[in-house]
Structures are given as C-alpha cells and as structure tokens.
C-alpha cells in the first residue's frame, strides 16, 4: 500500500467517531431518499399499471335511475373513449361470526362481455355465470377477513330482501384500492366489502331493469375532462344525477393521491436536509484537518507530491466516509422501503405491490450523496491544493479577534474572561456557528413536524369524532323516506336517541363559481351529529339560509350574508335563491347544512328523511344488530364507535413506527452536528483550554468555555427549529388539503417542548462524550506543541 494511503487509513481511524457521525447523517439522507423515492415509485407505477390494465375510469357519476337508452348518448360526448353503465347499491352483510352487521356495496357485472371500464383482477375462482342469480364476486381483503373461498355462502340484505350469495371468485378492483366503508376514515376489511353480481340479477332485485344508476367513462387522450363532466351532468341532471367527478375526486384514488403527495414531499424535503447537513459536517471536519495538517501538506509538496495528489488524498478521506454512509443508507433504506411497502399493502389493495429496487434509484441516491460530500469537501480540498509548500511550513498567522460591540460589553464587565473567550470565538466563526445552529434546528424541526402531524390528527379526530359526529351509529335508507320512519327506528331495540337527517343533491351557484354537492338537512339543534362553527362551537341552524363548510365557501368565494343560488338536481330544473347564514368548520368532505324544515320547503317535496344518527344503549347492542340485520329498507349502517376505535388503534401502530423513525433521524442529526462541532472546537482550542488548566482553572471551568458555545448554539437552534418545523408542518397540511379531507394545522406546546428535549438530550450526550476528552487532556503534550 502506498504511504499516502496508509496515512489516509490512519487518519480515518483517528477520525472514526466524527467520521461515523457524518456517515450516519449521510446514511439518513440515502435511506430516506431510497425509501421515499422507491416507495413513491412502487405505489405510483403499480397504480398506473393497474389502472391501465384494468381500465380504471376517468369520470364517474351516479344518478337515481337513468334509462339504458341514454348510454349511447353518453358515448357520443366528445372525448369519451368508453362508457360503462351499471347498477350500484348499498347493502348490509350478515356474517355469522360477526356481532355487528357489515356494510357493503354491490355492483352489477355485465353478462356475456367484459366491462369497458373498471375491470376486475380475478385472484381466485371464476367470473359469475351469465344469468346466475345468487353468484357473487367479493373483494379479496373482505374474503380473507372472513375466510371466504369460492363456494362459500353468506347472507346479505339488499333492498330489504335477505339473500344467500355464493362466492364464485375473489377479486380486486382499481376503484377500491383504498376501500372505505360508510363513516370510516380507514379501510376495515372486516366490516366493509364490495361485491359484484350479474347485471340481470341485480337489476331485478333493485328494480332497475333497463336502467342504470352509475356510470363510469374512460376518456381519450387529451380529452377535456371538465367539458365531459359538464355534458354528462347535463344528460343525467333530470335523472337525479348527483354530479360527475374526475379521478382526483374518486375516493380511493384521492387517498392514493394524498399518499403519493406525502411521499413526494418527503422525498423533496427530508433527504436534502440530511445531505445538506452532511455536506456542512464534511466541510467542518475537513477544514480543520487541512488546518491541522498544514505542515504535512507543505512537506508532501516539498517532497514532490503534486498538488492534485495532495488534494485527492483529502478528497479520498471524504469519499471513504461517504462510502460508509452510503452502505448503511442503502441497507437501511431498502429495509425501511420494504417495511413501508408492506404497511401499504395492508391498506391499499393492489394485485401486487413490491418495493421498487430499481438500480437507478440507488444510483441517484449514491450520486447525490457523493455530490453532497464532495461539495462539502470542496473548499478545504481546494485549500490543500493551493497551499504553497513554503508557506505551509511556516506557522499559520494567529487568528485575529475583535472586541465585542466596540468594547461596550468589556467596559460593562458583564462577562468573565472565560465567557468573553467563548463569545468572541463564536463571533469570529459566525458562519460556522450559524450553520451549526441551523443544522441543530433541523433536528428540532423534523421532530416538530412529526409530532405536530400527530397533534393535527389528534385534533381532527377529537373535532370529527367527539365534537361533530358523536353518534355511535348511523343508519341510511336506500331511498329518502317520510318522517314516520323515525318512529320505526326509535322502536328498534337499544335506541336511546335517533336524530334524522336528509341529504339533497344540489348545485350551488355564485356567479361564475358553481359546485355540485349535497345539502344535509338536520334539526336545528342536534346533540349527536352536530354542526360546528369556526371556533368549533355547536351551531343552531337558522330558519333560513345555508351553513356553508369553510372549504365550500372558499371554492364558491362566498362569505356570511352572501346570496347563493341553489339549483335542484331532481330533474325539475328549479332553482331557488338563498343566503349564506354562516360559514362553519368542516374537515371532511364538502359540507353544507340547513335546517331540515327549511330544506323541505326548498326541495318542495315535503319532509323526507335519508337516515338517522343514533345513540345506542350498549347493553342492547346485540339485539339492535339482530334487528338491523332483519329489517328491510335499511340501506347501510355505519358504526362510528367501531370506526373510531379502529382508527385510533391503526394510528397508534403507524405513529409508533413513524415516530421511531423520526426520533432516530433527529437524534442522528442533532448528535452528528453537535458532536462534530464540539470536537472541532476542542481541537481548535486545545492549547487555549490546556493553558487555562495550567493557569489553575478546573476541568469544569474549562469545559464550561466549550459549553457556553455549545449551549448557545443549541439554545438558538430551538426557536429556529420550532419556526422551521411550524412552517414545514403548515406547508405539509396545505399541500395535503383536498375536498375529501383537510387535516387542520395544529401544533401543541408540548410538541415544541418534546422536540427540544430530544434534541437537547442528544446534544447533552455529545457534550458528555466531549467532556470525557477534556477530562483526559494531556496538558504537557498540548502545551509543548506549536499551534
């Protein structure tokens, strides 16, 4: 081995702790990059391929009853490539092993042909026979949850009729990658199932022969989606069309979008943080090394080594550290990526989902890491390159310091000489001090974002489940019913309170802004499902006017008191002028509320009830479930209490994993930055500190000089980290906000405290490690050497 390489290896051994700290920070960058890009790609490419292959629709709409003869008209809309009309009905599923009824959706499956839109991936079994009346395909997760296989028989209550269906196949659908049941925020494979029955059987059961109530379109490349939606709405309007929407508002797809946005955000924000910090750390230690080895550099050049050879010698050191970091990062990133993809397959049902380990992702991760390390090394390497041999052999010029603020502080005698030393040192190296603070603040910021997202979800959960939707269950009817149905519901066993509601599809228009949505009518004062104002206080719905969700108000550019046109979508073409009585807080969906009586007047059809929210005597739950399973005319039931619990449990699991990852990342950054900064300080000031010891200062006093600087850097980093974390968190919630749900941006005070505690803890640990070195200072050795 060449002598210079032997020196390199020995340098590396000497710098092992600092080198390892840098390698770990770099590894975090590599790992998070591989994790986020790999997972993003896995999810995004799998989705694209799945959608493509299984003909996932571009535009969707539902209506009450549309004659089949309209299908060709829809196909003629410009830009439409394929039309699939179908029947979609809610149902209740009675599973022997479950106390509570499960909810589901049944969709018609075309006979004698393949569907032109929304195909199915057949995992097991076969497609239903044409004309079969009791055969069904069920979604795979639901089948697995209940141990169904082809041949299994289960009961459903469809349109008030109990049926026994035979599973002929298990399938996956691009429409239900993320399959949410009514009232759920998270897929529950046990309580929600989607199934397909032959069209003719379902049509006769739901009294929709010769008609359809749902349509999906595939568009030609380059088609104008907005125009297609407009024309489709025009066709379906008189048949109770509830407004067509594109993929971005399709429930399952929207959740996937949200996930992809998060992953992309993670790929754009987190790895650069680590790469920048490692570049800074490389810069810090290499600059110090070149300063320390000034004479050696001179000597090497004097001996005849070229400038390039000397510069490359130092660059190699950095490359070796980077290589170490890359290896760790690649292993950790792949492991995390697989774990993350595994987690995804619990929530997202794809025919296959494997972590994308394409070579190019790894090459990119390796290239950017090396680039970061080299960038960090550049100035120091250039210095080693430029340093003339003759100059290098001379002692360096002593560092020049300045008085603080023109000597004012000195005159005030606020600080001891030790403190003055620390402050002047910090100010002299202000760029490095600031960057150290910034680096440390990123650790705090990362934790603030992670813990802040918990706060936000917790807040949303509290607002949605405990302040707004407080009911234990909700029943929705297949069709709106007269008010007398309320007494029938109240007579069901275990019902303590039943609050009616009514849903009316409308289009709200404000000048050029309009939106199809549904007005929910409620009694003015409700206790279970409540409407909350912007301060999250319950609202008493006024006699007239609309209570508009904040998101809707934003979309339609409306404020309290503004007039708004309500167009009914019942085929009559009637429109009514109303006003915005209040803007209210909504986190999920596009909520618009109205006093039920006012809504009845507006609809002109008299009082109707679409469903009820329930408070249940938990002791009689089983009786109620039994009754629900045998009561016709119930569309679906959502069990909010169970949803809440499931949501909490799943969140807890995921959060534990997420927090472990973020804690590790933050601690690595904080430790890496603070430890390296302390070691550099120690190296730069060894003589100075040893002198203090000789002069009679104790170890602690000497250590305090270091601590003042470290303490200041870490202290300044905290508010900076809070601010950065707050900003980052805010951006994340803004980017994630969609019509389907908006997570409020909330950061609790203890999040700041905990984040700082972790970072200060990591800093204290690095300080302790450095303190051990101060304890073992060889005074004589240090003083004998020329600085």
């Amino acid at each position, binding site marked *: 081995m060449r002598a210079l390489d032997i020196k390199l290896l020995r340098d590396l051994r000497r710098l092992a702790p600092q080198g390892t700290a840098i390698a770990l920070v770099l590894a975090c960058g590599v790992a998070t990059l591989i994790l986020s890009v790999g997972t993003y790609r896995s999810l995004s490419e799998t989705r694209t391929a799945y959608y493509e292959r299984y003909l996932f629709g571009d535009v969707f709409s539902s209506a009450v009853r549309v004659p089949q003869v309209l299908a060709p008209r829809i196909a003629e809309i410009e830009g439409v490539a394929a039309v699939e009309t179908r029947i979609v009905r809610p149902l209740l599923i009675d599973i022997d092993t479950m106390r509570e009824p499960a909810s589901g959706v049944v969709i018609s499956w075309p006979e004698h042909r393949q569907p032109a839109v929304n195909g199915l991936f057949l995992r097991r079994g076969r497609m239903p026979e044409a004309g079969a009346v009791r055969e069904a395909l069920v979604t795979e997760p639901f089948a697995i949850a209940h141990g169904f296989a082809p041949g299994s028989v289960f009961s459903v209550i469809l349109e008030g009729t109990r049926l026994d269906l035979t599973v002929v196949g298990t399938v996956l659908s691009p429409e239900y990658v993320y399959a949410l049941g009514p009232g759920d925020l998270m897929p529950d494979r046990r309580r929600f199932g989607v199934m397909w029955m032959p069209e003719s059987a379902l049509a006769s059961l739901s009294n929709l022969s010769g008609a359809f109530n749902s349509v999906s379109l595939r568009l030609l490349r380059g088609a104008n989606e907005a125009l297609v939606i407009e024309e489709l709405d025009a066709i379906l309007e008189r048949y109770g069309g509830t407004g067509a929407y594109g993929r971005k508002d399709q429930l399952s797809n929207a959740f996937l979008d949200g996930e992809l946005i998060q992953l992309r955000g993670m790929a754009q924000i987190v790895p650069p943080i680590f790469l920048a910090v490692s570049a800074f750390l490389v810069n810090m230690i290499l600059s110090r090394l070149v300063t320390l080895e000034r004479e050696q550099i001179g000597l090497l050049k004097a001996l005849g080594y070229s400038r390039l050879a000397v510069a490359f010698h130092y660059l190699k050191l950095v490359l070796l550290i980077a290589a170490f970091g890359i290896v760790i990062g690649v292993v950790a990133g792949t492991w995390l990526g697989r774990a993350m993809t595994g987690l995804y397959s619990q929530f997202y049902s794809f025919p296959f989902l494997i972590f994308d380990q394409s070579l190019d992702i790894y090459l990119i991760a390796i290239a950017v890491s090396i680039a970061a390390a080299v960038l960090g090394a550049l100035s120091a390497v250039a210095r080693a390159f430029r340093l003339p041999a003759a100059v290098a052999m001379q002692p360096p010029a002593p560092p020049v*310091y300045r008085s603080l603020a023109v000597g004012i502080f000195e005159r005030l005698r606020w600080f001891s000489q030790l403190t*003055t030393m620390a402050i002047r040192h910090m100010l002299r190296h202000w760029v490095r001090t600031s960057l150290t603070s910034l680096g440390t603040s990123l650790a705090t910021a990362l934790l603030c974002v992670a813990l802040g997202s918990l706060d936000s979800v917790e807040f949303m959960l509290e607002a949605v489940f405990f302040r707004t939707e407080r009911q234990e269950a909700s029943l929705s009817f297949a069709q709106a019913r007269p008010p007398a149905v309320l007494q029938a519901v109240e007579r069901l066993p275990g019902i303590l309170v039943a609050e009616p509601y009514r849903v009316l599809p409308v289009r709200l228009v404000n000048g050029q802004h309009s939106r199809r949505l549904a007005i929910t009518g409620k009694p003015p004062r409700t206790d279970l499902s409540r409407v909350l104002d912007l301060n999250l206080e319950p609202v008493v719905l006024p006699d007239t006017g609309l209570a508009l969700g904040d998101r809707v108000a934003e979309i339609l550019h409306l404020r309290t008191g503004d007039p708004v046109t309500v167009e009914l979508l019942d085929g009559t073409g009637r429109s009514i002028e109303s006003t915005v009585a209040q803007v209210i807080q909504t986190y999920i969906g596009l909520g618009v509320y109205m006093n039920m009586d006012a809504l009845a007047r507006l609809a002109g059809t008299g009082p109707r009830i679409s469903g009820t929210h329930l408070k249940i005597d938990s002791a009689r739950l089983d009786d109620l479930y039994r009754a629900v399973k045998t009561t016709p005319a119930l569309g679906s039931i959502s069990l909010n209490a169970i949803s809440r619990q499931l949501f909490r449990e799943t969140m807890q699991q995921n959060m534990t994993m997420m927090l472990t990852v973020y804690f590790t990342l933050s601690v690595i950054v904080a430790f890496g930055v603070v430890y390296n900064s302390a070691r550099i300080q120690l190296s730069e000031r060894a003589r100075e500190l040893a002198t203090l010891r000789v002069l009679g200062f104790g170890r602690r006093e000497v250590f305090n000089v270091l601590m003042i600087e470290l303490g200041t850097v870490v202290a300044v980093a905290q508010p900076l980290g809070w601010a950065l974390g707050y900003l980052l968190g805010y951006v994340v919630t803004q980017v994630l906000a969609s019509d389907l749900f908006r997570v409020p941006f909330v950061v609790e005070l203890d999040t700041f405290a905990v984040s700082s505690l972790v970072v200060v803890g990591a800093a204290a640990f690095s300080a302790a490690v450095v303190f051990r070195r101060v304890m073992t200072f060889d005074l*004589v050795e240090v003083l004998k050497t020329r600085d």
Partner: protein
Amino acid sequence: MAEPVFVVRGLTKIYRTGEVEVHALRGIDLDLREGELVVMLGPSGSGKSTLLNILGGLDTPTSGSIRFRDRELAGANESTLTQFRREHVGFVFQFYNLVPSLTARENVALVTEIARNPMPPERALELVGLTGRIDHFPAQLSGGEQQRVAIARAIARRPEILLCDEPTGALDSRTGVLVLEALVSANRELGATCAIITHNASIGAIAERVFLFSDGRIAETRVNTERVAPSAVHW
C-alpha cells in the same frame, strides 16, 4: 539562608509508551529556596522539562517525594494539583500560550479573576514594560510582546513560584533580553522563586544557581558568585 520552597528527594519519572519505558527522571534530589532564581540547562530529553512540569503540578512523579513547603505533592490528586497551580504557581512557556480571543489585559485578568490577592492586570503589564499595548489582541503583538504578556499573566497573581520553560526559545536575542529582564524584575520585586529552563548556556549567568541536566539526572550544580544582568547576556 532562605527557607526551601521545594524539597525534592529521589524523584523518578518513567513514561511508558507501549512496551517502551523512558526514564525521564532518575532520582532527582533538589532544594529550591524562597526568592531564588535558578536556571536549568541541558540537552533535549535530559529531564529538565519533566522536572519543571512536576514542580508546577502539571505532572506527577513515578516515585520519590516532592514537598512544597509542608505539602507532599507526589501522589496528590488532580483537583489538589489544580488548586496548587491556582494558588502558588506562575507558568511561562516557549510558545506564550496566550488566549488569542482575549486582549493583553484580559489575558492577565483571566488569572487575576481567580486569584486571591492579585495585582491589577495593568500593574502586571507595567512590570513587564507593556503599558502601551494592553488592549491589543495577541495577533497584534510581536513575539516578545506576547511573551511579556505571558509573564505578566504569570506574575499577576503574585505566585510563590514562577516556572519558565524555554521563555526565550522562540525569540531573537534582543527580544529575549527584554523577556529575561522582565523575569528578573518579577523575581526581584515579588520575591517569587523562579526556575528557568533553557538550552542556552549563556542565560545561566543571570541565575544564582545553575543545574546541569543529563540523562534524567542533575549532573552538576553551579553556584554563581556573581550574577550578570540580562542586558549583558548575548547569544
């Protein structure tokens, strides 16, 4: 005759690096008297610096005894030695060892802030002839000036012992003389026992006694019947 400040008996120091044992001191016997100025001469590795470090409480002997007044320093723990340095010892080094981020005055104040009965920093600097440059940082001072600041710092706490390791080693002869003058005047005015290590035999002339070191032992002790003023020393 003045009281001995230090009584050193059978002092040995062995450094072990790996498997190699270096006998830096091989049984030193020595008395240093109050107010005395001595010079320790000898080639590199002869043990003079090791002795100075042990006298100053920077290092501990492997065996033997070293008494400072009535206190045994051999075997003292770290905090006792720190306290000893803080109260009784002033050091001057070859490379000055000033704190670059503190001005001349502040470098001296560094010591006076923790000393029991110090002189004002300005007075210490005046003693070494540096009144005009007390607010300068080390980087703004010449080598000789820096060494004089170091001497001022060493004497400002009115130490009983002043230990100087090659104080003129990095200086030219003219500047070196200024530094020696400062040391002699500090020795005279404060009555501090002053031990100066040097390679430079001619500096021995300013001392009362000169110890010649060789191979970890004191090979010879010379007593100067007539002391020479620093200004008369040339090298």
